[in-house]
């Protein structure tokens, strides 16, 4: 089956077409550009480009898989609404996968996968041989609790390498779209019902309370 995969949980705007047959995965076409402010402009043309590169049309796409964060909210929402609307428009199902798993599930040993949460914070989770332990967290890179991780990987790890207590991979790694499709594989192959995508925000909205009302 042919899957459109999207992730905008990091500064990378990413789209890909991935073929999934039983447990075989094949990356057919892929577009990525690191542009933290370019999600809404670039993502749709990237999807168009992926289809064109593969010589396919929308009718050839059987499902959509989207990274649901955690990630900076504005860009993340662009990818998620794009995935949801594309799937609705094409009449195909959409499935969400934790974006950090697109990094952590590719690791071996005990690893910290981290993306940039801005304001000197990271979104992170610990993986043991590629399997996530617990829910993703957000916090200051310099105040990371004891994790036992031997190394850190991901855009947030390379950016805040100096503040992290463990060795960090210098190259920024972004969520792997093929991995996201693999993780959604059981749902895709089973034809599971389409999902309402809910972002992993991890933070409450910054709400500026109204100015204090004058004394009555």
């Amino acid at each position, binding site marked *: 089956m042919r899957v459109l995969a999207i992730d905008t949980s990091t500064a990378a705007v990413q789209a890909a077409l991935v073929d999934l047959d039983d447990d075989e995965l094949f990356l057919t076409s892929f577009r990525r550009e690191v542009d933290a402010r370019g999600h809404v402009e670039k*993502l749709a043309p990237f999807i168009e480009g992926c289809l064109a590169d593969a010589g396919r049309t*929308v009718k050839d796409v059987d499902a959509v898989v989207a990274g649901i964060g955690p990630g900076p909210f504005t860009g993340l*929402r662009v990818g998620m609404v794009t995935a*949801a609307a594309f799937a*609705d*428009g094409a009449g195909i199902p959409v499935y969400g996968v934790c974006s950090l798993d697109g990094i952590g599930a590719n690791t071996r040993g005990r690893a910290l996968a981290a993306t940039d949460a801005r304001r000197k914070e990271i979104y992170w989770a610990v993986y043991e041989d590629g399997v996530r332990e617990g829910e993703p967290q957000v916090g200051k890179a310099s105040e990371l609790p004891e994790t036992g991780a031997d190394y850190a990987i991901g855009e947030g790890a390379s950016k805040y390498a100096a503040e992290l207590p463990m060795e960090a991979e210098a190259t920024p790694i972004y969520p792997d779209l093929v991995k996201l499709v693999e993780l959604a594989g059981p749902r895709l192959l089973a034809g599971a019902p389409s999902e*309402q995508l809910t*972002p992993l925000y991890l933070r409450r*909205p910054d709400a*500026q309370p109204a100015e204090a009302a004058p004394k009555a």
Partner: protein
Amino acid sequence: MKNNPVVMGIETSCDETGVGIVRGHELLADAVASSVDEHARFGGVVPEVASRAHLEAMVPTVQRALDDAGLTLADLDGIAVTAGPGLAGALMVGVGAAKAYSLATGIPLYGVNHLSAHIAVDTLENGPIPEPAIGLLVSGGHSSIMMVEDLAGKVTQLGASIDDAAGEAFDKVARLLGLPFPGGPYIDKAAKEGDRAFVRFPRGLTAAKDMEKHRYDFSFSGLKTAVARWIEAQRAEGNNVPVNDVAAAFQEAVCDVLTQKAILAAKEHGVGTILLGGGVAANSRLRTLAVERAEDAGITLRYPRPKLCTDNGAMVAALGSHLVSAGVAPSVIDFPANSSMDVEVVSLANRL
């Protein structure tokens, strides 16, 4: 070009997730999901709260609109979306969705201006707009006098608020009076029981020297301050503040300036039609005063029903339908969501 095109409009520039569907000038669906209740306790729209609500509501609201219209996406001739101006993160949800629907269906996409859409919505109630026309757009985000020479391409701004939007002034004064958010409807209601001439609050930018430089511009922050000072002074003297009277006198000051300047703009430009739009156009006093003054000046005043004045998808669909009918080229899919979109750009095809 196709007559009576069926167009879906998507609007997410502020706190309403709106999806409307029109056929020509006929309104087929106007689905709106609002997050206004979530903002009420903050006394203003919180952008992140609005954006979260848009994402949640987007696809269900599209489905609701299609169901209400008894149509499927395949029946559409165009998809229009507010590309700006508005809250950046909120706009991006609508623009992202519209692009994806267009990609998935092959239906042409039009990125349009929110302000022109406020004008276009009048066609759903009153038919084609005579051109030229003057648009008086008043809401929580804008207070503008627009000159509409061609709704499909030539819309210019004659004047606008140089500080607070009129709707913002309503919200702020409502807060001073202990009335809930959004302030407009509560002030309107209180004012009905009040005396408009109870106190004369200042009319911003109406003095002779201001009229030279800011002939069609508005200013409402001084008015808000004047109301605040007046209330303070009363309290300092131990007097009760007559909420209804203050609401009525404040509302009168706003509506007086808005209507006066819009009529002046029409007269001085030899334009015979004024269109009222925006959330504040639902204000009953603004309508009454505008009707009276337009009649005296021999000008036709048009306005849609209150539900169509506030932000909704129907207005975006109405403008989209007009653009499709006029044969305007669709937008290219890489257009941005532009929070400070130039009021004079009606649709993003203009730039190509």
